């Protein structure tokens, strides 16, 4: 999350919105966003509606939900989908920024 925060301006320069969706409730999101001064969208999905729609993987052995990232282009088409296999399995921003540059 902080990695995205540090590079947020690079995403803005590339006309890309960042939207973070998670299973926490609105109060937890708000507290986290205020604490870290985050400028992108934060969406509580405690009913898991979007998380299920996008097929977020749940790993019972690693205690919970795995991170995932998707890039949707201006036409509404998915250009990149990454389902993490562990908490640390998050793509580098540089990789995503390069992809945005190639769209």
């Amino acid at each position, binding site marked *: *999350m902080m990695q*995205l925060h540090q590079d947020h301006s690079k*995403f803005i320069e*590339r*006309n*890309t*919105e*960042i*939207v*973070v*969706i*998670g*299973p*926490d409730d*609105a*109060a*937890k*999101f*708000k507290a*986290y*966003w205020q604490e870290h001064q985050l400028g992108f*969208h*934060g*969406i*509580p*999905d405690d009913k898991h*509606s*979007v*998380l*299920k*729609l*996008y*097929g*977020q*993987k*749940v790993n019972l052995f690693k205690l*919970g*939900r*795995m*991170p*995932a*990232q*998707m*890039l*949707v*282009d*201006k*036409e*509404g*088409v*998915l*250009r*990149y*989908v990454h*389902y993490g296999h562990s*908490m640390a399995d998050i793509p580098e921003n540089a990789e*995503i920024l390069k992809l*945005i540059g190639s*769209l």
Partner: protein
Amino acid sequence: MPGVEVNKQAPDFAIADFNGKEFRLSDYKGKSSVLIVLNRGFI
């Protein structure tokens, strides 16, 4: 559990952000790209 695939239309959704303001994916069509990050939860 269903997943999504590259080069297919992203399923649209509309959901309130933590301030109660609606975020609708299709509102950005023709305007900007959207990076969707599915978070595990804050620890």
